[in-house]
């Protein structure tokens, strides 16, 4: 027993030392515009999935995450956490399909690489790096938050339907959910006016003209449609979060102080962080050398 404990402590020490010296992540292109940054460690502890929002992209939305996870100037504990992680950047065409379809696509993507990372994701010459992850972190921005919550709800409903055989993995229910500027509504424009309203209302030269269109039934229908979607998602998630212990049903939420797209809100049991000064809807999830909070928020959630 004593020997086992000693060996275990030794392993932990070795892992910590390796983290400080680990080679940087390796970029791997995956199907459908998705890509992964595979840890330089042979058996990374965790997988982190990033889901962008409406009109976003896996590169642009998470700009500099890819670089700063290996930044030697960062704090040791933060760098160690990220070096012990494989990062998966999910890509989807937010304009072309419904949220349910985005969710289905995401779940298939996730099931392909989590909880067991298949050899096929990696270079064929390096089969030793296939292994089972111990932790999962799901990170969403804006509409990506809705996609994630729908996916979690989908699998939570499966897990709750005890009379039915479970044919899909429910491992994601034990993951941690981190949401940047979640736009808890679908994007379902009604007509050209609705699309213009959705896309252009952040442009200061055009915003005043478009604001007058808020009175139109087209826009009102659109907002109602979004609200209905939000309400269902919220009710079902809150109900399951209150009656089960699945960690993924409760999110840590972070907005920028200058959020201008969505309403700053959370589901009942979510943990909301104080808004980030000087950050808006797009910039809240983009770390840089002077703004490392996103890296720490993903790592620890609220109180990062």
């Amino acid at each position, binding site marked *: 027993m004593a020997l086992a404990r000693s060996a275990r402590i030794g392993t932990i020490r070795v892992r910590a030392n390796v983290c400080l010296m680990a080679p940087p992540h390796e970029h791997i292109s995956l199907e459908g515009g998705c890509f992964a940054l595979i840890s330089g460690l042979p058996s990374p502890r965790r997988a982190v999935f990033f889901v962008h929002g409406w*009109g976003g992209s896996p590169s642009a939305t998470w*700009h500099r995450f890819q670089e700063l996870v290996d930044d030697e100037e960062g704090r040791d504990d933060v760098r160690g956490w990220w070096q012990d992680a494989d990062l998966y950047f999910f890509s989807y065409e937010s304009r072309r399909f419904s949220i349910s379809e985005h969710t289905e696509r995401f779940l298939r993507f996730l099931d392909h690489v989590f909880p067991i990372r298949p050899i096929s994701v990696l270079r064929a010459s390096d089969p030793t790096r296939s292994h089972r992850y111990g932790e999962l972190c799901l990170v969403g921005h804006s509409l990506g938050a809705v996609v994630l919550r729908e996916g979690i709800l989908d699998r939570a409903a499966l897990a709750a339907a005890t009379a039915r055989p479970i044919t899909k993995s429910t491992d994601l229910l034990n993951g941690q959910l981190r949401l940047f500027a979640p736009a808890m509504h679908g994007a379902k424009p009604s007509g*050209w006016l609705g699309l213009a309203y959705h*896309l252009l209302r952040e442009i200061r030269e055009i915003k005043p003209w478009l604001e007058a*269109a808020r009175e139109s039934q087209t826009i009102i229908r659109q907002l109602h449609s979004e609200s209905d979607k939000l309400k269902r998602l919220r009710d079902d998630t809150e109900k399951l979060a209150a009656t089960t212990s699945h960690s993924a049903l409760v999110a840590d939420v972070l907005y920028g102080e200058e959020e201008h797209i969505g309403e700053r809100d959370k589901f009942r049991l979510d943990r909301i962080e104080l808004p980030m000064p000087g950050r808006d809807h797009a910039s809240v999830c983009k770390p840089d050398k002077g703004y490392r909070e996103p890296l720490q928020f993903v790592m620890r959630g609220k109180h990062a």
Partner: protein
Amino acid sequence: MPNASLLIEYSRVAFRPAVAGWEKAQSSSEAKQRFAAASLIESYGWIIVGVQVTAFPADLARQVMIPHVQSIAAANVLAERESLFQSGLTAQNRVQLRSEETFPPSFAAIYPSEFAEFPEAPSLFSQWCLESLAFAQSDGGFAETLNFALDQEWEVVLGRLRDEPFLLEVATDSERSLFEGYLRALLHMNRMADLMGVDGARTASWPARALMRVSVGDIHGWRLNLTSGLFETRFDSVTEAVEARLRAEATADAVELEKNGFIRGVRELRLRYAEALGYLSIEASD
């Protein structure tokens, strides 16, 4: 620290498709060839500037480009002959492509004191690069059509735009929407103009910032070429058609939107975008 991951993504999503597009266009119309040449020269330009600001690692950039130098040179010949770019970009490319050095000296080597005070240059460049990429992928053929469509084709396209039905879900890639492409062009202009002034750029010494944004304007400005008479005329026509459609939809809902209000807003946005990319005099914009 140069960002290898971004360069790999840029190569995969933009540069290599641009090379393939150029090669494919050799058997297509002159308009297609011009668009393919402009796209490839822009991609080449982003890599060059990326290395110059140390946003991209030079060794990896060399590996990405070397196999395609002949295609780049051929595209550059066409771009130069057709004057697809302004400010002597293609002439500089010609000299560079004949040089033994793959890349020009870094900006920091040419302007050491200015760029020493501008450490965020690589980060800013990366954001501009990603935004330009996002627009190129989502414009629905807007840049290609407004810059290169023949007059006869243009009349058809403009007529279609006036009646284009709104489809919530676009079924295939071939079903391009000029209407949506136009809205995304406005969004892109707004984002580019905003990005030119974030992350400390306003407090940096202006020669470094001006140099970078004019470099970006040189390689990217052709897509929304507001200094070209043809593009500008067509852009104005689209703006009028779009305002008419939006006002008509609002009127059907018993809401009256101010006539020419949208056109006026777009005109102001254009001005801000043009200033940001250095189309106007640098002194005037700073």
